[in-house]
């Protein structure tokens, strides 16, 4: 649910920029279904010990990371719109012109900026992790599923950003990578939480 709200929050801020406002039309159904998904029993747990709310580092860690997921979600939305419009253009459909979708170059630029924003937030959130676990003895980080998963997600998005910067990686391939990345993230998020002693 927090991922859903964080995506909405990111959109509400970015939506102040007229050129990015278009994302709302496509993002709204996704936010809606994410919200329904989040209502599934057992996905979200209460915090009986108050560890999250009493420890500022834990709160900030969670907020930054979940907002970054929201940013990756909007990234995926922009990428979907890119692929739809790109297909219309390749097929020489009049829909390419009649559609209300913005130009594909703008869609790619927006996805790129959201990608960088998301990665920065994720990096900051993960950087707080050592502060949180410093008192936990006998913690072997590579045995915790969530930590490994987080490193994998960070690495995947970092590679995409590096490829974009170094080789101007873009177009359809970028769009598919961003969509696949977010789908992987959202489908495995809860499962890795359950497998992690630290995050359960």
């Amino acid at each position, binding site marked *: 649910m927090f991922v859903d709200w964080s995506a909405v929050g990111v959109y509400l801020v970015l939506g102040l920029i007229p050129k990015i406002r278009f994302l709302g039309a496509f993002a709204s159904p996704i936010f809606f279904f994410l919200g329904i998904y989040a209502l599934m029993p057992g996905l979200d747990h209460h915090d009986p010990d108050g560890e999250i709310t009493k420890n500022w580092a834990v709160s900030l860690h969670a907020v930054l990371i979940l907002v970054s997921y929201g940013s990756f979600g909007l990234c995926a939305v922009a990428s979907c719109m890119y692929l739809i419009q790109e297909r219309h253009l390749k097929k020489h459909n009049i829909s390419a012109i009649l559609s209300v979708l913005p130009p594909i*170059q703008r869609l790619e630029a927006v996805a790129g900026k959201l990608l960088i924003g998301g990665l920065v937030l994720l990096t900051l959130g993960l950087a707080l992790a050592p502060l949180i676990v410093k008192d936990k003895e006998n913690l072997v980080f590579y045995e915790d599923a969530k930590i490994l998963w987080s490193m994998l997600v960070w690495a995947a998005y970092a590679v995409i950003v590096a490829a974009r910067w170094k080789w101007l990686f873009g177009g359809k391939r970028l769009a598919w990578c961003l969509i696949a990345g977010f789908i992987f993230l959202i489908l495995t998020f809860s499962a890795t939480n359950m497998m992690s002693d630290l995050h359960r």
Partner: protein
Amino acid sequence: MSIIVVGISHHSSSVSVRERFAFAESEIDDVLRSLTDRGLAQESVLLSTCNRVELYVSTRLPATEALHAIKQFLIENRQYQDVIQDEIYCHANPSSVEHLFRVASGLDSLVLGETEILGQLKKAYHLAMEMKFTGGRLNKVFQKAFNVAKYIRSNTGIQRGSTSVGSVAVELADKIFDGLKGRRVMVIGAGDTSEKTARSLLSRGASEVAVTNRSYERAEELAGNLNGRAVPFQEWEAEFEELDIVISSTSAPTYVLDRARVEKLIRPRKSRPLLLIDIAVPRDIDPEINELDNVYVYNIDHLQSIAQDYLEQRQKEIDTCEAFIKEKVEEVLGSLNPPGHAAKDGPMIQADAREAG
């Protein structure tokens, strides 16, 4: 009081007849004054464009008499001595008002839904108003016509889309690039359509047009027309990396751009999109190039098909527009002829050569 329109348009006559009836702006004052002095009109507006010449008149004369007299006036004023068949049409209200609303909305134009006519009509009206040839009746009717045109433009699809190859190309570019400002265009070859397409792109902000042609003189000539620069035909590939849009229109019998060549040329571009417009027949650009990532190839058939689709969409809107126009005609005539006043409406009359004599 009748509202009359007498005119000639691309529907009723060829350009060789229309041009004999055209009026320069400097003549309008004299013509309308003469119309008024002869008692044929209490109010009048003259519209003269490349596709139509129309006199809109509010007159105290009975409709039938007014139609005949104004038609004769037009013929004599232009000193037209050839036989007139059906070239000149005449309408009295309500048809005259309906005609005006249709003209203002672009429903009577050569290209259905075009918007230029509204500006021309406004100009003609304001000119007549400044010269004090309009009054309460024509002011009301013309203002209503402009409102009807605005409503139709905003609420129907009659003016939607582009119906020329050049403007379709611009719309495509708009859907690929984030703004056309600063985009670089190259024209390979020469031709009317490629020149018009380049002009359309320039008018929307494309910053530079480079022209290349086997004949460097021809390239220079076209570049001069477009405020661009000529590039020798052997050197145009060197420019490819920086281009955004290429318009090709040569008379080459084989592909100027084949897939292998373009694959090599686009490598330095990374993932920057490229729009290739092929206006030539036979085609200059290998259609397989469209399969490459970030490259979009549109040939003349694609562009014309899109333009045709737009036209068909506009056609579908006609009934909606006509129904709205009928409603507004009744409204405005009702306000000009409130209950209790005898209506001076006359029938729609199509001029007849024998009647004119």
